[in-house]
């Protein structure tokens, strides 16, 4: 079980290599990296609208939630290894926010588990995004219904 909540950036290549290192039963690793965007397509806003993001979180509960999500993924799929890294603090467009990686003997399990963790993380891990907008203002990002729907899909599966 590996969950890290940190201010600093991370090295994807090193993290993925470490994840599968020494376990030659692993057939595949699925990873997802979330990046800061400089726009909100949903709001019809063009590039340059978002100058930076600040990620606030709830220290303590964040780690507990991420560990619970990872434990649920390990219960649902046969994972050899699993990693969740989520940053907090101020980040500019293009910067990495989150890395989720799942290793398994089977690619189906790796894909499913990685997507499950991202979907649950989006609706359960206590992080909040504050955007710095082009007019020098700030605004809190609203939760998206599509994220809740994506998370809810997984509840219908046998646990």
């Amino acid at each position, binding site marked *: 079980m590996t969950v890290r909540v940190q201010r600093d950036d991370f090295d994807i290549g090193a993290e993925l290599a470490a994840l599968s290192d020494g376990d030659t039963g692993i057939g595949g690793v699925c990873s997802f990296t979330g990046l800061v965007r400089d726009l909100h397509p949903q709001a019809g806003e063009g590039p340059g609208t978002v100058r930076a993001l600040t990620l606030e979180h709830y220290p303590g509960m964040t780690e507990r939630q991420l560990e619970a999500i990872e434990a649920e993924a390990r219960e649902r799929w046969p994972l050899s290894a699993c990693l969740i890294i*989520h940053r907090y603090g101020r980040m500019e467009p293009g910067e990495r*926010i989150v890395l989720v990686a799942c290793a398994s003997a089977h690619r189906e399990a790796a894909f499913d588990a990685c997507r499950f963790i991202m979907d649950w993380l989006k609706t359960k891990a206590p992080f909040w995004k*504050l955007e710095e907008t082009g007019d020098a203002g700030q605004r809190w990002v609203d939760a998206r219904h599509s994220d809740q729907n994506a998370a809810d899909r997984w509840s219908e599966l046998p646990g």
Partner: protein
Amino acid sequence: MLKLLYFAWLRTKIGIPEERVSVPDGVTDVADLIGWLRGRGDGYAEALANLDVVKVAVNQEYVPFTHPVVAGDEVALFPPVTGG
């Protein structure tokens, strides 16, 4: 005594990130606590006006508004999360 934590726009509306409070005897669950907090000032009333966008954690676990609160609890109030 309860330890209260506020995050994101609930924090900015209320104006402080955390506080320790002693609540009246009638406050036994989260709904009671929120009702009592609304009476503490305009910032609280505004932050807690629409419970559709307020999530609650007691001792770092999500709970419904019907969850009891007892002395020593850490109660966090925050908007739906937007990480990832």
